[in-house]
């Protein structure tokens, strides 16, 4: 098949960016979206041009590295990661726009690559259970009800891709933070730090320049891992309870 991709080119954080159109032919519907970018890059290199910079690593939808806005949608038309999106989702001859995540919290590094380290800093603020190595009791000492374990798992599947931020009109990282908070608050191991965790993480999120949540739900619609809207409700509940408890 043949496509025209209009790709955001931006030499560096301070440089100006623009969409540049490239025809790409001789590609197959079985290719992933990133493999199509590989093909484009090979041709650019052979022609003496600079290839398009984009982040990727596992190409299995699990590392969270890849992430671009395709035709205005984070990760493109299907609810998955860009590496798991295949060209069969497009029609021969389509013109496709490819842009980086756009959010105040994610400055552009180059072309389609952005800096998502703000998400790491939110976790550093309290997204963990303090369990120093070697002091753990036997794993069976504390049973966890299966429904809680399953729901904790569902939230723990967040890959930190940042699509939720990119999709949100406010550039909010609430769904990401909610996933982390929900995961740990459901488990007995996470309980002692429950209050300080949510307060510190929300503070960090605000300090990083992410916008507030206005319940538009775009995050949930674009999340490749299906983190549910109810997690945001959990976050809000945890936050309220923590504020009231006066604990840090």
């Amino acid at each position, binding site marked *: 098949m043949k496509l025209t991709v209009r790709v955001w080119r931006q030499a560096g954080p301070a440089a100006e960016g623009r969409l540049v159109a490239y025809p790409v032919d001789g590609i197959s519907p*079985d290719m992933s979206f990133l493999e199509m970018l590989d093909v484009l890059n090979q041709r650019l290199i052979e022609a003496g041009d600079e290839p398009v910079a984009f982040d990727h690593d596992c190409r299995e939808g699990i590392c969270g590295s890849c992430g671009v806005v395709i035709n205005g949608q984070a990760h493109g038309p299907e609810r998955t990661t860009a590496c798991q999106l295949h060209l069969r989702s497009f029609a021969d001859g389509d013109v496709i726009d490819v842009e980086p995540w756009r959010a105040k919290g994610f400055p552009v590094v180059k072309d389609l690559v952005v800096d998502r380290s703000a998400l790491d800093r939110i976790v550093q603020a309290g997204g963990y259970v303090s369990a120093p190595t070697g002091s753990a009791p036997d*794993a069976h000492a504390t049973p966890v009800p299966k429904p809680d374990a399953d729901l904790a798992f569902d939230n723990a599947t967040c890959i*930190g891709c940042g699509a939720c931020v990119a999709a949100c009109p406010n550039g909010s990282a609430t769904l990401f933070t909610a996933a982390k908070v929900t995961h740990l608050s459901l488990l007995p191991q996470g309980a002692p730090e429950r209050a300080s965790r949510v307060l510190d993480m929300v503070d960090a999120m605000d300090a990083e320049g992410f916008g507030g949540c206005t319940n538009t739900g775009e995050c949930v619609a674009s999340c490749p891992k299906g983190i549910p809207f109810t997690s945001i409700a959990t976050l809000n509940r945890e936050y309220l309870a923590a504020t009231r408890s006066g604990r840090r």
Partner: protein
Amino acid sequence: MDGYRVGDPIADTKAPAGPLENRWDERKFAAKLVNPANRRRHRVIVVGTGLAGGSAGATLAEQGYHVVQFCFQDSPRRAHSVAAQGGINAAKNYRNDGDSVYRLFHDTVKGGDFRARESNVYRLAQVSAQIIDQAVAQGVPFAREYGGLLDTRSFGGVQVQRTFYARGQTGQQLLIGAYQALSRQIDAGTVELHARTEMLDLIVADGRARGIVARDLVTGEITTHLADAVVLATGGYGNVFYLSTNAKGSNATAIWRAHKRGAYFANPCFTQIHPTCIPRSGEHQSKLTLMSESLRNDGRIWVPKRSGDTRSSGEIPEDERDYYLERLYPSFGNLVPRDIASRAAKNVCDAGFGVGPGGLGVYLDFADAIARLGRPAVEARYGNLFDMYQRITAEDPYAVPMRIYPAIHYTMGGLWVDYDLQSTIPGLFVIGEANFSDHGANRLGASALMQGLADGYFVLPATVNDYLGSTRLGDVPDADIRQVETEVRERISRLLAVRGTRSADSFHRELGLLMWDHCGMSRTREGLRKALDRVPELRAEFWRDVRVPGGGAEFNQELEKANRVADFLELAELMLLDALAREESCGGHFREEHQTAEGEALRDDENFAFVAAWEYGAEPVLHRENLVFEHVHPTQRSYT
């Protein structure tokens, strides 16, 4: 001789000699301690943030050391360990099915085809139970039963259920646990993290590892970092084959450069092939996707009985199907170890029974499981894997059988380390997939995660203590630092200066195919020789004709790639040499010249019960470490 020389034997001097069960305790007791107040003054570099590096960095920092940590991804949470699907072994015996430390040890030595050290493997089995406790304490959401206790399943080559899992995302969940522990230390200021920074060389001063030279991948700046000890946790080198289940960024640069600075490289040719991957769909393919081995618990593997049968799977009646694993290996059936399942698939495909495009595939069929357990139960067990398969192939595995084919998955070789996980360069420790230890020739499933975490959480922190407690370190001479820095800069300039016509990827693909054909699932003397002729030519072509656009002082992904491919082109030659020198078949290393009448791997314990530790040089030097088996006696492996 064949392009290499045989040198003095090498030995591990750190494992105590006494009873197997006491060795690790004895070693820990004999180890020197560093006064907690003094630990702050020691800097330890940890390169890598996967399960091995993440757990090591967090634990060393908890102990009070100042840790300087590196990864080439933008976040430690994206290290390749995140992709591990199936599970992690531990001798917990929660199932009361007769599991024990000794049995896990026994299975692992046997599964490694008697090419691993007993002391190391026993320790791994001992520590395994603690790993699960640690992960649960961190909030890792393992699968649970309705009673609230942990669930387990079985994996290929094993007859007890000792594999703990978190749906098909065990690696991700374990990594997030380690990453969170690391994040806590970053916040506390005890870990200094350098993400998007790649180690390009090792600084050795006075015979000891004292630092690294790295490149900031965003600015291109070359930086130097000094420390009292250096830990490499940089993962495996399976990407030498280009197509593999590894993440695209996985590479050999860190261990290869350390090798060139004096660290011996052990068993480079031992590669694990995974039997259940999605077959490639065309020339464009950039990587292969694994379908967890746990699928073999319920899926049945078959091909049509008639070669060249082009009917669709549904049109082939039961009595015209060959469930070849169940036929050939009745007691293990579809759960035979990975090397056996892989080779069997290759054999039926080579004989013309393969299915799907190009005949390079076999069916993994869930029809029986769905009939027996019902679709919801199958969905609960494997749902996300089925979704992944459907997404990639556009076929519905609930309705038609999956198609699978073997692919390169894991490298058992790596830098040689002693029982303390220290390489032949004092002060250089190597952990996780980057070292060679514990797995021998045929790593069973669910043991890499176990080893990475055992090394990082429990073994390394004790042995680094001993090293720092018993070593006096001087200053690193400026000249030594400048020397390495200059070499790194020169190499980058050289890569940029070639300005040839071919991309780094095109060389990588060519190398990968060559390695797959001649050093992959089965190897012959003739093929290895052929590849040994071709690799140096390809390397010369690379340095003459590679094209790396852009400059060095900027974000330049082509430069990153070219730099890594250059190392693969050197490592490949050592892999071929190692495969040629090992005149036997064992585990994942199958030399066609050495097979039984039934076509099974034929080991030669008389002459090859050793670890091949290679010293770098114009002519590589082979140092043999002889392996002694006091507890598990080598027998011909049999899974029939």
